[in-house]
């Protein structure tokens, strides 16, 4: 009894000093964290920020690939870019590709995820089948589809009994690239949807069942609303990735620009200007324009998200 009495007297004081030094120590522990960030910042500055600034600088010059004899040309590069029909064509091709890929991939990924989610047996098998193509390098997927679309020896025309000139006709070439991309990348969005489906609490469905909702109603009133966030994410990621399309298109077209230059993408055009025509200044200018475009899409999404959150509140 006496000891407990003594303890109750002493304890608060001890606790107070302990608490004091604790806050001091942990505050010190969380101070001066610059060193944690330093290694990343070094790499980030060298390979992201510096090239970005350098790109802005170069875009006002007539630099060539060796960097000699550079002189300042003001806004000439930007003026030329706006008047360059190939810039608009390339932008159009990348935009057309994006317009085709984004809705298709979103719907397809959702349907595949619903299928894989609702089959009770061998879940790992469906996941493996739908996701496996994503694990291939882009160039392998492209070569494979180039082979499948090959006139004469290609399996696609053989299976469907048609003779579509997939890779050599202007109206099919980009479509062929789109089909390859769907097969190759749908697995990623599929996994996102699958994870989201598994995250929907089961009690919602049970409650709906008790209220007599059929499978269709449950999908429309529970599944789809619960997937709204993930759909926004899938669409945003797909738009950003699709605008940057390059690998599949060039490999499927043997590093060319496709029939009547119909698959020359924006990225490809900047690289052509920089590495084939050696016009680094001009290439930088159109890269900066492209960067602004990508940033605008990303910022638009952030703005939409914020507006929606405020709307919910």
């Amino acid at each position, binding site marked *: 009894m006496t000891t407990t009495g003594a303890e109750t007297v002493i304890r608060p004081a001890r606790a107070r000093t302990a608490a004091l030094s604790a806050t001091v120590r942990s505050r010190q522990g969380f101070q001066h*964290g610059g*060193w944690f960030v330093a290694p*990343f910042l070094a790499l980030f500055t060298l390979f992201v920020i510096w090239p970005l600034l350098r790109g802005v600088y170069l875009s006002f010059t007539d630099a060539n690939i060796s960097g000699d004899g550079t002189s300042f040309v003001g806004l000439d590069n930007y003026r030329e870019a706006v008047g360059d029909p190939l810039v608009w064509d390339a932008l159009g091709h990348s935009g057309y590709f994006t317009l085709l890929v984004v809705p298709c991939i979103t719907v397809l990924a959702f349907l595949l995820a619903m299928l894989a989610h609702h089959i009770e047996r061998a879940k790992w098998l469906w*996941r493996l089948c739908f996701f496996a193509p994503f694990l291939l390098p882009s*160039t*392998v997927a492209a070569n494979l589809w180039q082979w499948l679309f090959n006139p004469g020896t290609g*399996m696609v025309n053989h299976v469907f009994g048609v003779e579509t000139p997939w890779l050599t006709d202007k109206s099919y070439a980009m479509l062929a690239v789109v089909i390859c991309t769907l097969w190759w990348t749908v697995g990623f969005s599929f996994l996102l949807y699958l994870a989201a489906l598994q995250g929907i609490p089961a009690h919602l469905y049970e409650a709906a069942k008790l209220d007599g909702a059929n499978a269709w109603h449950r999908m429309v009133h529970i599944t789809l609303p619960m997937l709204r966030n*993930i759909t926004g994410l899938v669409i945003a990621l797909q738009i950003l990735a699709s605008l940057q399309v390059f690998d599949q298109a060039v490999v499927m077209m043997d590093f060319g620009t496709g029939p009547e230059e119909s698959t020359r993408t924006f990225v490809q055009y900047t690289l052509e200007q920089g590495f084939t025509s050696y016009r680094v200044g001009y290439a930088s200018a159109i890269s900066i324009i492209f960067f602004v475009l990508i940033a605008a899409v990303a910022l638009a999404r952030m703005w939409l998200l914020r507006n929606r959150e405020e709307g919910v509140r």
Partner: protein
Amino acid sequence: MTTAAQTAAEAATPVRATSRRAWSPSQIVLTLLGAAVSMVFLSPLLWAVFTSLKAETEAVEVPPHWLPEDWTGQAWSAMFETGNITNWFVNSLVVSVCVTAVVLLVAALAGYGFARTQFRGKGFLMGMVMAGLMVSPAVLGVPLFTTVQQMGMVDTYWGMILPQCAPAAMVYILYKFFQGIPRELEEAAFIDGAGRWRVFFTIVVPLSRPSLAAVGIFTFIASWNNFLWPYMVTNNPDLMTMPNGIATVMNSYGIQWAQLMAGGLMAGLPLIIVFVFFQRQIVAGVAHTGLAGQ
């Protein structure tokens, strides 16, 4: 109550419970549909496998046929004898392993630094990282190349590896994760007199193993499959990575389809085989890194 108990029991032994359940008509339909769709997804890969096992002349026969009439490993052995394929494989491995290791270390440190510690200019630097999410070699390839060129790193391992080691996205993902760890654990360790680095490596890192695995897996896949950057920075066939070498060298002098398919499979199969064994972790990793974009 009984239903709750049943579902609990089913959850505890999911495998047995599902395999013993009878086939309902809707499950039969769904499973058949799943099988059909899976065949569509796998058929291009099967076609690649079968093509790689044909002789070059048989591969280009018109009309095409699925199975080889003469099964032969010719394309595979020719690929190993004539090409640089083993070289490329090693290069791919070196680059991907280095990139993954550096990214994990650097991004974990930076994510923790941003999430937990105070330093001058933190808000500004965080803003820069967010802006960096929008920069990729596809967007700013030409200026990035001239930068790397200035450093004299064109056609070197360094030139291939280092520019892939500053992914703002991974820092952002880990930053969000570290914010979710309760502070009390670290505070308790500080009180016990542990230093900052010790707290990071002995408490924070073990706690975040799943997230680090996710970032590592995702980085490895992205790096193994990266084509654009190695394509820009190397012209030397001895330094090329798998996707790069297959696409440029094997495509350059009259495509030999059987060999090309064999090469493609050799580039793609390692990840697919790894996926079969580590499916759960990889799915979690890809979904986790993707979902973190929300």
